[in-house]
């Protein structure tokens, strides 16, 4: 069985470290990290990913704008999940309108992140037209 690959974009290196260290064990995925929106978009042009995990507030991108850019590159079938400290307000609405699949709120323990992405990865595994 293929190991699912996740791209996680966040400028908070502590968040990148905990997600990269724990999700492989909890979800059996491989995590690739990027510290900026531009870095994440560059990686999307070079590698295949099964799910994209985004922080909302990056120095070089607004989260909704980045989500729209990500969607232009990966199409509609790959899940895009936000992991954000923003409460349930305009940021969440903007993210969902830009094509986000799920909006998870920080603080979000690794087990909750794993639980949040699990159904999306299962659907992805069952999708016959995935690239």
């Amino acid at each position, binding site marked *: 069985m293929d190991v699912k690959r996740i791209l996680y974009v966040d400028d*908070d290196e*502590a*968040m990148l*470290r*905990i997600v*990269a*260290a*724990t999700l492989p064990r909890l979800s059996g995925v491989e995590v690739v990290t990027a510290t900026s929106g531009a870095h994440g978009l560059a990686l999307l042009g070079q590698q295949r990913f099964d799910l994209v995990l985004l922080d909302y*507030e990056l120095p070089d991108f607004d989260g909704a704008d980045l989500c729209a850019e990500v969607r232009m590159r990966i199409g509609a079938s790959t899940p895009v999940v936000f992991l*954000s*400290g923003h409460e349930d307000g305009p940021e969440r609405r903007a993210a969902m309108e830009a094509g986000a699949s799920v909006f998870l709120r*920080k*603080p*979000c*323990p*690794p087990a909750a992140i794993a639980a949040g992405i699990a159904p999306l990865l299962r659907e992805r595994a069952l999708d016959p037209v995935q690239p």
Partner: protein
Amino acid sequence: MTTKIDPYVAYRLQLLQDGQTLRSLWESVGRGEPDVRDRLAKFLHRLHGTSGTYGYEQVSALAHDLREVVVARPPRVLDENLAEPLLTALVEASLGTVGS
């Protein structure tokens, strides 16, 4: 060869630095330096999310509450004690006496 650092060990060191950053930002806001209040609010927003993700629930809750105060009104030098519970929690968390 690369050495993998335990993220939880690295974050305890980060919490110690965060205490120093908080004290510095708090003093700058108290002196009325421009734009620092926004930086302080963003710092507390991040601290709330990341510390809670690492399991430091007390630090996370105190950072959330203090951010609410900062957003509502800029602290003055005389309000220094408002930051003290979070500063203490950060030291305790970094020493491993509470939290994750």
